[in-house]
């Protein structure tokens, strides 16, 4: 399933501010953490994690630029051209798990959470409107953090996570979110000697491991990742600090 296959959007759900889920059916068999390249012909092509797995699949897309804005204009019955699933997804480790999702990072983590019925969950965002999948995981009683305190813990996901790490024994942390947050989570994992898997996002062109545009310290996010494990993450001097522009030029993050 490497070439484009065309799927029809069956349902569109409003998830949060500027975030929509597009549900479709196809026969590909993604694992949590894997992604697809979505092509909107004549517009753009960009990577998206799978946010719903099973017969009905989904992408949960935050509107941030021209491409995602055009995707938000699509209606039920419209088509998507997708190739994938690509990359290495999450590896489920036996034991007690903490899942920490920041912003639209929850899209990537959602299908993993469904496969980890006993995991503790932290859902974080800048503000209440941006919290993703509160409803979907209501019964799982997620911990909630907002930067502005508009819901749940007031502060960063990492602060809330550190509280949990102090109180409880975890075997592994799964995380996805803004890179500085993931870097902080990696540091926490080291501090508390807990395993960690983080799903990274980098600018992608080919999605199949040849163009080098998504590379971080020699790791290709598109095929070696997007999910990386503790030792790899510890070795990444660029994590949360340096990224590459579409030209390949290094630039300091935000």
């Amino acid at each position: 399933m490497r070439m484009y296959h065309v799927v029809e959007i069956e349902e569109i759900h409003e998830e949060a501010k500027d975030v929509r889920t597009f549900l479709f059916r196809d026969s590909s068999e993604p694992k949590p953490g894997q992604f697809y390249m979505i092509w909107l012909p004549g517009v753009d092509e960009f990577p998206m994690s799978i946010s719903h797995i099973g017969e009905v699949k989904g992408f949960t897309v935050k509107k941030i630029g021209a491409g995602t804005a055009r995707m938000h204009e699509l209606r039920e019955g419209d088509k998507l051209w997708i190739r994938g699933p690509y990359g290495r997804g999450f590896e489920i480790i036996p034991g007690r798990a903490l899942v920490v999702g920041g912003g639209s990072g929850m899209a990537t983590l959602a299908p993993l959470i469904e496969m980890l019925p006993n995991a503790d969950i932290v859902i974080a965002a800048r503000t209440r409107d941006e919290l993703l999948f509160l409803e979907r995981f209501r019964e799982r009683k997620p911990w909630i953090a907002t930067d502005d305190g508009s819901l749940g813990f007031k502060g960063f996901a990492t602060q809330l996570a550190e509280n949990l790490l102090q109180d409880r024994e975890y075997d592994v942390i799964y995380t996805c979110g803004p890179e500085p947050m993931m870097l902080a989570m990696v540091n926490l994992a080291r501090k508390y000697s807990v395993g960690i898997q983080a799903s990274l996002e980098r600018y992608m062109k080919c999605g199949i491991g040849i163009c080098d545009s998504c590379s971080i310290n020699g790791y290709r996010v598109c095929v070696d990742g997007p999910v990386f494990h503790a030792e790899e993450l510890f070795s990444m001097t660029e994590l949360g600090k340096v990224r590459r522009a579409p030209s390949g030029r290094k630039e300091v993050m935000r």
Partner: protein
Amino acid sequence: MLEIELNGIRFRNPLILASGILDESGETMLRVARAGAGGIVTKSIGMKERAGYENPVVYELPDSQGLLNAIGLANPGIANYGEEMRIAKGGGVPIIGSIFGSTPEEFAFLARRMEEYGADAIELNLSCPHAKGYGMEVGVDKELVEEIVGEVKKSVRIPVWAKLTPNTHDIVGIAKSVEKADALVLINTVRGMAIDVDARVPVLSNRFGGLSGPCIKPIGVRAVYEVRAEMEKPIVGVGGITTGRDALEYIMAGANAVQIGTAVYLRGLEVFSLIAKEMEEWMERNGVESIDEIVGAAQRR
């Protein structure tokens, strides 16, 4: 057994990473060196930073036949490339700096900078767009390429490789026009296109792209054979090499070394050590002790 010397440069094996595949960042090149490549050609670097074309920039052909790409010469610009070269050099294998420009002077400038950055040789990417013609490449203009090679040769002391386009009826004529180069690299991608029937548009945002991978191997082997039949100059074969037999095919056509691009996708980073092993096995079975013994073995003169 696989060791070769080319323009006085030692390569532990004749399997060199082709330009444009996993060779933008220093650390990725380091990794490719560790994976067993005998040498590395950098991504083609130009005067200025370029983001390249919009996505989609790559299209995969069915049945592992190859890829169509239109990356659009994305590159960080020569000024930003010193640090990547420094890191790449740590891999202990020769690093060939690939450059592209639009005038002989630009090529010469870029070559000098690459030499300063520690490149072991320069590769001239002559498949860049020609100022004059519709879809034409610099590399089909014999006078222009002769001048480019001449300028660059005057500007640097390291060897200069000229990488030719197959999009011509006269590869031998073009090869002869760049006689001053220290080696010829044959071939760059073949001009192609793919249209998505359901979308009713060309897939690549640039519409046209370069074809690479197994589907162009017969074209590359032919180009190497044709040029070798007329010239003694070292040749680096490239185009569709995926297995040890493919590499041997190019060598028997007349290549002294080969480059590998698309196969990195098809077989993973292990492709260099896999191909090296396949070549060694064939050589042992056939009593061949060094690559040089079989260079051009299939030439009938």
